[in-house]
């Protein structure tokens, strides 16, 4: 007989007490292979107000397209110095930031390769369970054939693609509700 998964509850307003010890905004120490990128953004609510109590977590493959997880058995190089996990707690302006490398491509459904992406999980007061979304990279030819982006209504795809704001600098905002609402996934 199978068990039932425990019910999710909100992370509440005091998440910093428990999660701040492992804030990881710099994912790739020197020597890790790949194109360096900084990602900055804000989490915005339905009234356009910054969400100052969110945890933004990212999970990504290395530049070769391999996840540092025993579940990834691909024959591609692993890098001991790169775990691929980041956690940023938003500040008073709702801002989060990461400094990392652009991931390589990983396989997706139907034997199609996915475009480079970050897997993003958000927790905050007012969410009884996490929001799950993805961030894709601008001007990447692979986006057009990405099997997950293809599931998103065309007019909303842009919400998942970061904007280039400078050399190696990307901006990507998360809008929880309303105009420009970010695409979230039923995971």
């Amino acid at each position: 007989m199978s068990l039932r998964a425990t019910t999710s509850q909100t992370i509440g307003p005091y998440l910093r007490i428990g999660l701040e010890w492992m804030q990881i905004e710099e994912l790739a120490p020197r020597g890790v292979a790949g194109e360096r990128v900084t990602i900055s953004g804000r989490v915005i609510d339905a009234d356009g107000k910054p969400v100052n109590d969110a945890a933004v977590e990212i999970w990504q493959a290395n530049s070769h397209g391999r996840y540092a997880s025993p579940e990834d058995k691909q024959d591609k190089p692993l890098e001991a110095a790169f775990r691929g996990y980041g956690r940023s707690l938003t500040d008073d302006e709702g801002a989060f930031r990461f400094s990392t490398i652009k991931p390589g491509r990983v396989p997706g459904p139907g034997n199609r390769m996915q475009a480079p992406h970050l897997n993003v999980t958000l927790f905050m007061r007012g969410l009884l369970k996490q929001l799950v979304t993805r961030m894709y990279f601008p001007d990447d030819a692979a986006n057009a054939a990405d099997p997950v982006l293809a599931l998103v209504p065309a007019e909303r795809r842009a919400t998942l693609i970061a904007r280039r704001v400078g050399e190696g600098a990307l901006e990507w905002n998360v809008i929880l509700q309303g105009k420009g609402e970010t695409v979230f996934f039923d995971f």
Partner: protein
Amino acid sequence: MPSITPYRRPYWDTQPDYLFPKYASTVKRAPALPLVVLPHTLSEVTAPVFGYDEVKPGDSDLTRQHKGEPVGERIVVSGRVLDENSRPLPGILVEIWQANAAGRYNHRVDQHDAPLDPNFTGAGRFLTDKEGRYRFMTIRPGEYPWRNHYNAWRPAHIHFSLFGQGIVQRLVTQMYFPGDALLDYDPMFTCVADEKARNRLVSLFDWENTIPEYALAYRFDIVLRGREQTPMEHGR
């Protein structure tokens, strides 16, 4: 590419919706547009691995993080982390945080008129062992008022955050205490229709792990999503 065995979707009424107006903060933060069903790919069934170099043995004893002992009733909180297929999950990072015995959080946002305890931070961590077990020593948190509705009080609870072997197993939840009169009034505890599901958030009094003349014990087992029994070529 080998096919991916996806994780099971939640059972009906066992997981909350995003919009739940009785919990007022959901109204401005819940997405309004339809969610897009995400197939489980390598991205979803992998997750970060944490090591014993990051989590120290002392991190699980919240009563010994300062010079003196915190005020309050010492308790042991322990349990197992399993998946829905009853497999114990080893090496799972469990993070907890809580209010002090007076119902006050060590956080600038908490202005409840109850004393802070200089000997209590209220944060702990544990990496589950080979059998998926975890164990914390802490003090029983106090109930506290909040502004969700008139005369709103949160039942006593401990926040839990867990990683899984796939990122879609990631779970943040709250553990409650048996017999708490505030549970039935709490919009978080009552956020799912399935009564059995919410009652699984209530820990059990744990006589076996009670330490004579030192600490009562509570048991809280946590179940993360399990994978389907057969792989699916295209997810769903």
